[in-house]
């Protein structure tokens, strides 16, 4: 069951350049993803590449100077601002990066949920003592904070959970525990969108991986496709595979461009050794290939 669909999403910001001029800076361009119930979709890309903005766009909490184009569908219905407001915190939940997202002067218990019985249930589930309810956010340790953020999302019986970089700063054990909680939630029927820069972690826990490059998704593959290079479709995904230390640890020359800096054609074309004239002139559309999706004219 398709819970959330994002089609051709583009996000740009109106910012000041040097001096007095304002310019539109594109951060995400023509992004396509679909979230299915019971599955974890991970978006993997480097830190600061704009992936968090996707989470904010879905929730409807982008800053005022952001311009959004494209469509988002919630169980087939258009996800309008009012629908976002209705679902936020309940069926559509965010597990944010840090506790700065919590109100620092409100006690934790009140912030997890208004309904105190739900709070008790959810604290028990994540092995947190009742005493947590009376604490303030700044009094929580790293691991506790993670679980509290998770509890906040779960207490609302969310159908779609967006986890924005849930593991930086956590020890290996805590990161694995956090991820296993998401797995549990997915297994119970929620659709989970995992935004992370840790490809290893994503590969271990997600069902599908959306490969993020230059502000767009170039491939959506099953996590198991990353076991062998041939199973991957897009040249960039293969380059990623080659660069992983456990594979060949081999780099591909060039630098990832900014979203929108490639005027026409495929965003990976400048670095691709398969490129042809067609690649530089028109952007390849997303097509279904071997149980996955890819934006490439040459993928087989």
């Amino acid at each position, binding site marked *: 069951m398709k819970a959330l669909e994002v089609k051709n999403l583009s996000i740009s*910001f109106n910012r*000041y350049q040097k001096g*007095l001029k*304002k310019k539109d800076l594109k951060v995400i361009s023509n992004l396509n993803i679909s979230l299915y119930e019971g599955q974890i979709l991970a978006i993997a890309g480097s830190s600061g590449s704009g992936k968090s903005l996707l989470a904010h766009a879905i929730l409807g909490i982008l800053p*005022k*100077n952001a311009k959004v184009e494209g469509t988002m569908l919630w169980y087939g219905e258009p996800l309008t601002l009012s629908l976002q407001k209705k679902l936020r915190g309940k069926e559509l939940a965010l597990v944010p990066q840090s506790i700065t997202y919590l109100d620092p002067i409100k006690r934790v218990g009140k912030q997890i949920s208004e309904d105190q019985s739900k709070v008790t249930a959810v604290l028990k589930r994540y092995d947190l003592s009742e005493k947590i309810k009376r604490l303030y956010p700044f009094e929580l340790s790293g691991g506790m904070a993670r679980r509290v953020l998770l509890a906040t999302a779960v207490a609302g019986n969310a159908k779609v959970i967006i986890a924005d970089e849930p593991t930086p700063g956590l020890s290996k054990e805590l990161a694995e525990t956090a991820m296993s909680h998401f797995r549990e939630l997915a297994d119970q029927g929620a659709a989970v969108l995992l935004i992370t820069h840790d490809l290893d972690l994503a590969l271990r826990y997600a069902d599908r991986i959306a490969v993020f490059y230059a502000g767009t998704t170039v491939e959506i593959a099953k996590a198991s496709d990353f076991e062998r290079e041939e199973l991957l479709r897009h040249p960039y995904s293969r380059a990623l595979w080659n660069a992983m230390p456990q594979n060949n640890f081999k780099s591909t020359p060039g630098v990832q461009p900014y979203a929108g800096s490639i005027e026409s054609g495929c965003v990976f074309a400048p670095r691709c050794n398969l490129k042809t004239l067609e690649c530089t002139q028109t952007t390849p559309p997303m097509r279904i290939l071997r149980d996955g999706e890819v934006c490439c004219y040459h993928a087989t």
Partner: protein
Amino acid sequence: MRGLNRRTSAAITAIVILAIIIAIYLGGSLLPDSALKADFSQKALKPSVDHIFGTDYLGRDMFVRTIKGLSLSLTVGAIASCISALIALVIGTTAALGKGLIDHAINWFIDVFMSVPHTVLLILIAMVLDRGATGVLIGIALTHWCQLARIVRAEVLQVRSQQFVLASRKFGKSPFWIAKEHIFPHVIPQFFVGLILMFPHAIMHESGLTFLGFGLPPEQPAIGIILSEAMSYISSGAWWLAFFPGLSLVILVLLIDKLGSTVRYLLEPREAQM
């Protein structure tokens, strides 16, 4: 201001205000003293087309007197602020760069200094220095550095603890080089804004001191003198003698304050990108 983004309109505001201030200053210094000649035929006239601010009891045009007075206030205020700002810069930087003991000592000194009502201190200094322009100037310079010193100290301390400054030392750079290339450029914007915002204080104090008789001598057409003279004529109904000079002073002070906050908005690197 449709079609202009906030930064552009802020820049325009700043330039306009600066132009007004410069115009006042130049007007006051360039107007010949002959414009201040007493003319008893024009005694105590209400505001009119010929004399937009009216005339005083010696027949002098109030507009000319006001402009000259504001110009004088600007001069005294500017010089006093600059000296005070320099004192603040030295003390603030010393506190931030010195070892813990020096920092503690300076903080203690600033606390003590700030606990004394500065108007009283100002009057005392002015009297000791025998009043006049020098007295006022030094008095203001010596009493207004505290807040800016604290700001400078905070900025220097903040930069000093940044990783890129600590790393600089490991690249072999001398403390002097680090102060010049890393710390100074970081402090300057806030320092500059603090300096501009000191002007209104300095000007108001100069006028206040002069009004009370502890400042500039009566021969100088300072706003304070104008206002203190005007006080004695208020009961005779010559309201314009106090109204226009007083209003002009307030407007000037507000304009400079607005300039200071606009410059701060333009220089802040962490402002919202709206």
